[in-house]
């Protein structure tokens, strides 16, 4: 079906009140989460709801309409020496702020800084067409339910976000990357555990299935080389710092997930270090491309588009793991693997979307599958 277009909040409300199933889309980069053009659910294009509403660099917060491109926000923050510390994946030119929050996943440089930790306020239209607000514009706020954090990962299934407030952090003046030639996954996991607990705080800690570990640090330009050397020596076998050009290219590619093939889907699966070995054995058996990031707190999996996503869903469920499919052709249910939230999820989804406008043909977001 053709997409509906909304360039202001009233149009979003009107579209929702029409009472037929729809899902918000914006930048068009997380295609697996979009409605199938041939299906009964219509896309509500909110990319016209864009623009920064408020940014006070001294406050380290900003408010922007949900359809604002991440590139615009990156540039704005960079010009004041700030950034989004959760490093949302940049899966294409058009990626938007709302899309980043709706996906709710961090990029490779988001170690110890989840999306939810930086979303402080949200305005959204719920399934009844009501415009409501949660949170606020200050960095600390305990008033009312934490709807801003709830929206992190909601994939447009709990409401159409129209405006978001986020807190930001200073952007490190310089960065450095150290690669460790660890051999084998168990050794790689041990290296990660040691580095994550070590004295040099890292912003990224990646692991490939062969056990190689890549760590990144950021900070003052004057100290960065000494610190990188210290990090490199902190475990055995010692690592080697990458040349500056190679290091920025490496992470630029990593946040675009350039290693995921054009005929593959990017699937993000939360993990924990002690669960990685068993998961990796299964993924290896299927011959899948994969990487582990954020100190083995996430598995990034490339799943062939030609294979049914349900197979990966079963594989994950058997490991008690859940995942979100971000790219590739639309899926009726991009959340795969073990269901999250149970009855709590179903009840909240029922309150925010009683008629199932956003649930489309799939069961309510996060509900039992």
């Amino acid at each position, binding site marked *: 079906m053709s997409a509906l277009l909304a360039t202001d909040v009233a149009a979003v409300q009107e579209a929702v009140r029409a009472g037929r199933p729809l899902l918000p889309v914006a930048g068009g980069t997380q295609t697996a989460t979009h409605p199938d053009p041939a299906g009964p659910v219509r896309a509500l294009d909110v990319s016209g709801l864009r623009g920064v509403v408020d940014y006070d660099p001294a406050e380290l917060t900003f408010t922007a309409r949900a359809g604002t491109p991440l590139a615009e926000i990156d540039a704005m923050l960079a010009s004041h020496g*700030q950034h989004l510390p959760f490093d949302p994946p940049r899966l294409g030119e058009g990626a938007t702020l709302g899309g980043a929050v709706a996906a709710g996943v961090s990029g490779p440089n988001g170690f110890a800084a*989840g999306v939810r930790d930086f979303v402080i306020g949200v305005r959204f239209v719920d399934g009844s067409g009501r415009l409501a607000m949660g949170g606020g514009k*200050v960095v600390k706020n*305990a*008033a009312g339910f*934490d709807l801003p954090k709830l929206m992190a990962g*909601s994939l447009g299934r709990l409401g159409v976000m129209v405006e978001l407030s986020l807190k930001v952090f200073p952007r490190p003046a310089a960065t450095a990357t150290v690669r460790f030639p660890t051999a084998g996954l168990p050794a790689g996991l041990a290296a990660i555990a040691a580095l994550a607990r070590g004295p040099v705080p890292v912003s990224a800690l990646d692991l490939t299935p062969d056990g190689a570990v890549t760590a990144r640090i950021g900070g003052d330009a004057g100290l960065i080389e000494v610190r990188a050397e210290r990090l490199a020596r902190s475990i055995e076998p010692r690592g080697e710092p990458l040349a500056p050009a190679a290091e920025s290219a490496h992470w630029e590619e990593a946040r675009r997930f350039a290693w995921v093939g054009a005929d593959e889907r990017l699937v993000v*699966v*939360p993990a924990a270090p002690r669960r990685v070995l068993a998961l990796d054995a299964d993924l290896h058996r299927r011959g899948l491309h994969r990487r582990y990031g954020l100190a083995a707190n996430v598995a990034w999996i490339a799943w062939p588009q030609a294979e049914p996503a349900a197979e990966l869903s079963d594989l994950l469920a058997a490991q008690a793991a859940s995942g*979100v499919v971000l790219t590739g052709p639309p899926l009726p249910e991009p959340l795969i693997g073990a269901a999250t939230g149970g009855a709590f999820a179903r009840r909240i989804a029922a309150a925010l979307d009683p008629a199932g406008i956003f649930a489309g043909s799939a069961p309510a977001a996060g509900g039992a599958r």
Partner: protein
Amino acid sequence: METADLFTELRSLGLGERLLTGDAQLAAFGSDALTAFHQRPLAVAVVESAAEVAAVVRLCHRRAVPFVARGSGTSLSGGSLPVGEGIVIALNRLDRVLSVDPDARTAVVEPGVINLAVSAAAAPHGLAYAPDPSSQSVCTIGGNLAFNSGGAHCLKHGMTSNHVLGLCVVLPDGEVVDLGGDSTEHVGPDWTAMFSGCEGLFGIAIEATLRLVPIPESVRTALAVFDSLERAGDAVAAIVGAGLVPVAMEIMDPLAIEAAEASVSPGYPRGGALLIVELEGEEEVVEGELAAVEGLLRDCGCAEMRTTADPDERALIWKGRKSAFSAVGWLSPDYIVQDGVVPRTRLGEALREIERLGAERGIRVANVFHAGDGNLHPLILFDGREAGAVERAEELAAEILALCVELGGSITGEHGVGVEKREYMKLMFSAADLALMEDVRAAVDPGRLANRGKMLTPPPPAASRSAAAA
């Protein structure tokens, strides 16, 4: 009669003597740290297992009896105030740290664990639990997560909900569900974060998976004296503006300093305002940042400065700061502590206005606050024995909250809404926002049994019907 039945049933769940019903037994549970409110509950169930929590909640649900979870009862907003026709579920005995995973830097704990006990269990692994409310030696993780509690060191590390990865919760009808997990990442809506900060309205957490952080290699604490609060506030803005992220930035005014000295003698330098700045991390990095901070403090007119890396001196500095609320008892028989937030660039303005409002009423206000994130804690001093004193203090408190919202902030940064600030939710949220929150609450808990009367104002019966029909 009915009450007797309820007691019999509760006892038969295995509570036996652990069901408290006598006046003397109940007296200790009638209030939390906001002692202006008091309510005798029907009974207190002192549970000893997660299964018992679920069984008691199921029984409450079946009999439509309201219940209030209680950790240590240190809520400053009446969050753990009992409901008269309901029971209190006391969770203090669920106080085990179930496991620590040093490689993943996580801990699994029961809800009645004392905040500091988590750090104690993590310390042998070189790890700590970051959120540090001043009440951390007595308050529980369950209370912390229900209120999304903060503390001085949340400036860098974030609040409680930033450190809760997974939960096992008993919903208000007794159904047990797992939310989140053991990863820092999650997919699907963040149900864990939604439960955190719910003030007990979504049920009772019976297990939590917490994130731990490495104990830093180096910590430096600077004490800086300014001739006015406003100058100290400007220094905070300058530090934030320079791209530095100290782990804590706290301000105390002369009254708060006087109180701290009277109670634990931290030996603070005296002046118009004291700013505590703490930096942590790698040795060389901290040294460089400290030099930068010292420069900024001087530029902002700092009159006297002292820095230390000595653990004992640092402990005393923080003991003074963290004792400030209770220490105010040395200055005044009664006080109300407020918890509003303002944008941090408007701190100076807010403080000036609070001073003016206090002076107008002839009420003394002590200020001690998390300056780095704009979270004020004005302590309004009064003597409850004087006629009208409580009312005057409450009026001032209301004006301060309105001021915070007007400046673009919040009515509470970390103490929660509870019963105390329920009426002020209207200042921040529209009727539609509040109706949506009520709908969410009613969907999770149609009988409104869990912590009834807190955070949200109960809708009039007619309104609730139409909301349900909408």
